[in-house]
């Protein structure tokens, strides 16, 4: 299966196709965010033996739309002592970072908005935008809680980039590429060819499966920390820091933060999908595979990871700052290093 942008094929390589390629993920992002918000509300409710939103549309399915309609109408407050420019800019920076990540995600063998061969590297680079947005917002708000939240967030994200990068590096070593489409292609075939199960190879590869499983687990934890999700939501930990970095934000600017959080969730989920779950590959080899099936498999795998994130959020208590650092530096990093060495050896030997 070769990789190309189907828009280029239909309307030719032009500005129009580039714009359309940029618009498609935006539409996808909005639809996804609405679904994810509803999903979060509903799943949290079901876990807690509740029903969740029930009175907005049938079974509350219009809830996120109502929220958007409401947030659009809210007054936009800038605190008197805030740094106006940074305060206004922060949500856009954050959202831009999240949206830019979508540029390289291969939704299907026939579609990645921008196909660049350093995709993995790019995602990590753009992902760092979120830190800047949070620190900007937290500092500019001129609120002690926001500032504390921003500082926590900065230290947290910086420490967790390292194990995260190591994991991704390992995957790049396994796939022999930094190109996301290439990585997906490298795992084509039935599900035991995914890097989660050691990648393609003879049955003797079975001994590396524990390492790849561990690696994906490490990436899962890291991704939770990078998106500020429970149990690592200390930058916004409601019981301590009220709202953390977005304490002072209202209306649409808060909605941007909100959207960006969900967008980031999807990005890390899709990275995990691409790197370990075979991206758009069908789990059954050739069966049910193709351009459109690719979109289906990709989104369903990514959504499953998002579901996992939501599920974890409503199960676990929050960790403390020092424990977070401990986990990042003294647990995840050594384990990731061990996996990296072992898998690199495996790659060299076979």
């Amino acid at each position: 299966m070769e990789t190309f942008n189907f828009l280029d094929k239909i309307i030719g390589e032009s500005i129009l196709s580039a714009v359309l390629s940029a618009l498609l993920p935006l539409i996808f992002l909005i639809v996804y965010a609405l679904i994810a918000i509803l999903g979060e509300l509903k799943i949290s409710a079901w876990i807690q033996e509740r029903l969740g939103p029930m009175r907005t549309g049938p079974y509350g399915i219009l809830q996120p739309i109502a929220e958007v309609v409401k947030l659009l109408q809210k007054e936009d407050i800038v605190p008197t002592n805030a740094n106006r420019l940074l305060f206004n800019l922060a949500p856009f920076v954050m959202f831009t970072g999240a949206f830019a990540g979508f540029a390289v995600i291969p939704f299907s063998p026939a579609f990645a908005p921008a196909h660049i061969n350093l995709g993995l590297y790019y995602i990590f680079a753009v992902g760092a935008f979120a830190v800047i947005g949070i620190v900007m917002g937290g500092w500019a708000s001129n609120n002690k809680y926001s500032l504390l939240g921003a500082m926590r967030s900065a230290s947290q994200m910086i420490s967790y980039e390292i194990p995260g990068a190591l994991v991704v590096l390992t995957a790049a070593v396994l796939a022999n590429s930094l190109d996301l489409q290439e990585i997906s292609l490298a795992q084509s075939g039935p599900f035991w060819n995914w890097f989660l199960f050691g990648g393609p190879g003879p049955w003797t590869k079975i001994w590396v499966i524990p390492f790849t499983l561990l690696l994906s687990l490490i990436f899962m934890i890291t991704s939770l920390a990078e998106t500020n999700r429970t149990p690592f939501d200390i930058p916004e930990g409601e019981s301590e820091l009220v709202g953390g970095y977005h304490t002072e934000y209202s209306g649409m600017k808060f909605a941007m933060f909100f959207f960006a959080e969900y967008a980031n969730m999807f990005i890390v989920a899709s990275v995990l999908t691409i790197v370990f779950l075979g991206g758009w590959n069908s789990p059954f080899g050739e069966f049910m595979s193709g351009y459109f099936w690719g979109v289906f498999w990709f989104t369903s795998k990514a959504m499953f990871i998002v579901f996992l994130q939501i599920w974890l959020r409503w199960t676990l208590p929050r960790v403390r700052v020092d424990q977070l650092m401990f986990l990042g530096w003294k647990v995840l990093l050594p384990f990731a290093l061990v996996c990296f060495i072992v898998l690199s050896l495996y790659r060299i030997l076979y």
Partner: protein
Amino acid sequence: MIDYFKSVWAWFHTILIGMKITFTHLFSKKVTIQYPNERYPIPHNAKNRLQLYPDLCNGCMQCARVCPVQCIDVETIRVVPTDPDKPVMGDGTQRKLWVSVYDIDFAKCCFCGLCTTVCPTEAIKHTTDFEYSSYTREGLIYHFSAMSSEQVEQKKKLFEEWSAKEKAAKAGKVAEPSSVEKGEN
């Protein structure tokens, strides 16, 4: 070193246990009572809004006195023998007092239920109604008296006339002492 691995294992293990529990709850039966459509059966003795049955109230004011928050406002007018109505209570006995004002301020009420226990005629009762929130505070003051303002005016006038007459009679008490006793009822 062993402790380190044990600790890491404990993190992993206990998280899995927690996830298992929440996952089973994901599909368990939901306990939510969807309020406007479904209702939890409120027991008959629940202490919610008070209700006065005016034809049972004899105006003894015990409820107003026992109320810890003084949220009950009662005013009475004596029924005079010259009254043409000859009012009777709910249980058929002769009424001695008109209850002209019986206001309960539910913004003050603490729903302790003391008023219902002291009432000799069971005129004041807690109902199971709790849906009476209001857009204004005045909307929470309930006027339970069954008398219209004209009626109140009329009865007041009757009482004044009568008491003036009584006073006059009292002045002439030396001459005719028995008239006062007659007026009592």
